[in-house]
């Protein structure tokens, strides 16, 4: 009993120590940003962006790292208008429609003229800050002749396996679902059935699928065109490559927005503008491993020249996605649910 008391004391003390620093500097305004956790990780864009923005904003930038874009939106739904967030960074266009429906967001007030994203998404509430094309990434040591097109992958004999993600639980999974839908429309279900013999497994998230690739368990995985850049830059390895599909690649655009209930509206707007400034755009490619949505201050690292540049971008507008997501997921389940 005594040891229990002591340990709860220790935990209490640890908890106080952990939350203590947050209350220290209250004189400056604090801008609270909800984002996904890889954004705030030591190696993510968060620390550098915080440093740069704080240099002349006269404020403290506070990141809250949640699991992913879906988790951020759900957190806002749970909190409603009592949310502490001033800004949200890390929704993607597929969530935009639902996010607007919460009524929690205010028009950005930011001039998005410098932004150019494939697919042409543009919005007065959400500001695109980076994007990436979905792509099949393969292990060139295992696979000497990868399928040259999505069609070749779908109509393959099933000897070349791919791991994909589940649209019910993950963003890339939903991306692949939309990719097939954008390309094949009503034939998508049949195409999924054809593809199924090449699908080794469907994982709950990106980490599991990519783990299968790097483990050597599967030669292909659904990821991004930018994935090889990580291996090129951080590991000096060109083993993992993306395949350019002539049919086109579906694009994921990541957006940021500010909350209507924020007490620091001007500061929030300033932060959104900062996100698409050359200074901030410079940080994103090699920390968030996505393509910059606006001009960078310096040219992209050489490794980005080696990446697949899709000739054609596929994109479905947020309203269509929001309206059909459930039905399309059911169709997918039906096609693959053996």
């Amino acid at each position, binding site marked *: 009993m005594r040891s229990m008391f002591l340990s709860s004391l220790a935990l209490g003390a640890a908890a106080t120590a952990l939350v203590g620093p947050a209350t220290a500097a209250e004189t400056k305004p604090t801008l609270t940003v909800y984002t996904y956790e890889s954004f705030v990780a030591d190696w993510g864009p968060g620390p550098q962006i915080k440093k740069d923005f704080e240099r002349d904003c006269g404020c403290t930038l506070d990141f809250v790292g949640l699991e992913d874009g879906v988790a951020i939106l759900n957190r806002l739904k749970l909190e409603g208008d009592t949310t502490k967030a001033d800004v949200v960074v890390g929704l993607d266009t597929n969530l935009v429609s639902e996010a607007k429906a919460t009524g929690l967001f205010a028009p950005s007030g930011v001039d998005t003229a410098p932004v150019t994203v494939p697919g042409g998404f543009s919005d007065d509430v959400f500001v695109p800050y980076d994007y990436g094309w979905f792509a099949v990434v393969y292990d060139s040591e295992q696979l000497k002749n990868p399928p040259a097109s999505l069609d070749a992958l779908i109509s393959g004999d099933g000897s070349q396996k791919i791991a994909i993600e589940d649209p019910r639980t993950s963003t890339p999974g939903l991306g692949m679902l939309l990719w097939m839908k954008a390309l094949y429309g009503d034939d998508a279900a049949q195409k999924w059935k054809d593809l199924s013999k090449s699908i080794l*497994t469907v994982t709950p998230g990106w980490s599991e699928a990519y783990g299968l690739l790097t483990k050597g*368990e599967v030669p292909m995985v659904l990821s991004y065109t930018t994935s090889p850049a990580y291996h090129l830059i951080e590991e000096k390895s060109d083993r993992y490559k993306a395949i350019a599909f002539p049919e086109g690649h579906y694009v994921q655009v990541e957006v940021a927005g500010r909350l209507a209930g924020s007490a620091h509206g001007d500061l929030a707007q300033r932060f959104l503008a900062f996100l698409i400034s050359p200074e901030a755009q410079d940080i994103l490619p090699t920390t968030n491993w996505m393509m910059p949505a606006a001009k960078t201050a310096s040219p992209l690292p050489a490794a980005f020249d080696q990446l697949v540049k899709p000739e054609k971008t596929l994109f479905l507008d947020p309203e269509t996605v929001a309206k059909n997501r459930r039905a399309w997921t059911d169709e997918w389940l039906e096609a693959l649910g*053996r």
Partner: protein
Amino acid sequence: MTRSGDRAARLALGLAALLFLALFLGGALAALVFQAGTALSFANLLGDAYLRRVALFTLEQAALSTLLSLGAGLPLALALHRTRFFGRGMVLRLFLLPQALPVLVGALAILSVWGRAGVVSQAGAALGLPPLDIYGLPGILIAHVFFNMPLAARLMVSALDEVPAESWKLAGQLSLGPVTTFRVVEWPAIRKAIPGAASLVFMLCVTSFTLVLTLGGGPGATTLEVAIYQALRYDFDPARAVAVALIQLVLTGLVLLAMLRFGGREAGGFSLGRAATRHDRPSPLMHGASLAVVALGVLFVLSPLAAVLIDGLKADLARLAMERAVQQAALTSALVAGAAAMLSLALSLFLLLARQSVLSASVGKRGQPNRERRLLATTFELSGSLTMVVPAVVVGAGWFLLLRRITDVFSAAPFIVVATNAVMAMPFIVRILSPALAASAARHDRLAQSIGLYGLARLRHVEWPALRRPLALSLAFAGAFSLGDLGAVALYGNQDFMTLPFLLLQRMGSYRTADAAGLALLLGALCLALMMIAERGVDAASGKDGRP
């Protein structure tokens, strides 16, 4: 303290623990339903063909996994008990390790052995065989057996350890053959452990999520836990999430009740696996067979763990260990695991003491406890056994809603995570302590009553000596379980409150596979260290006044 005072105190503590569970779990569910603003509609769910299929698959895979885990665990437990070999203690310890590993690490480790590029496939390729394809039900079953068969074996070994020395002596003197020994001595002991082991494994498999999706090969393999997660995430339909969670709870509860009824009243228990002296002399053939079974079982369990070790050693361990984030996460994990284990222990103990007190209330009056008492006793036991089935993500979301009205959820996060982990680990502890408590009650109840030993004095002289060993083991267990847990932490998004498994998944999610492998190894080492500290502590304590 008087006899009735003692009973009242025990009952009060038990009811308090029950109330805490009801409020903690029920409060979370209620908050989510309230937030949704819609009534729960079970009629809709029951008519949902997708959900019906998912429920059926959940039960089917869990039942098969349980059957296989126990079926393989039985011969392994017998063989482990019959043979003595160098490193047996370590093997029994390593058998608990899979529980502490994040599931994703376990899944990749299993694939190192059984995957298309795994050791077995490579050996097959040398013989010109095609690579193994385990994706689908086989993959799910292999993984569940890897995680749970060692658990079942461990439970059965401890049941065998509880066989009194006289029985072995008698079996030796009568020169009973192995078959008769099994029938007369071993099976009756193991049989008592089966309901507890089976229900525990069943629950762990019902709530399986990542393993089922990753190794299941496609959406045909989906569990209710996936449906709950789906409802709470993309569909953001808290009412549906709660309803599916309740369905999962009821289905599992029914299966558990059936197991309890079928298998007799006592839940099985773990023990430290101390060797009992056996007097039977197995023939060389039997001895050889035992050794072979042990070798196979140990190979099956340890080979994926070896993969974790090998991958982990390839990582830059020195750099990782020096990272501030890693050190802080390790400390947080250890604190959370320690606190969760303590809380879990206290709650379980209150429930079990109350249960025992209710059950033995009528012993003095001769005859069986009456119906109401049995019902109350079952409530105490079952409530402590079922907590694992309420998804941590649902509990976390519910408490988030409740707390944000009254306090800063960031500062509350550590407490919610500890409480959730503690409640989730209760089924392990209940099964460890329950049999020890029952045995102690059977042995000492009358004596204690006749000499008027009640209250704290009774706790010190009757329960404490009998419980000391299982108590420490259950602490290690709950700690290990909590160490590997991820469910509750993720929701709060507090950068200053990062556990080791969370850090591991973060690295994994940012291409840093080698770091993740290194962290898995560190996590495993931390868990083993925890177990050994617990055992050493117990040995030191029981060295002074021994076991009753």
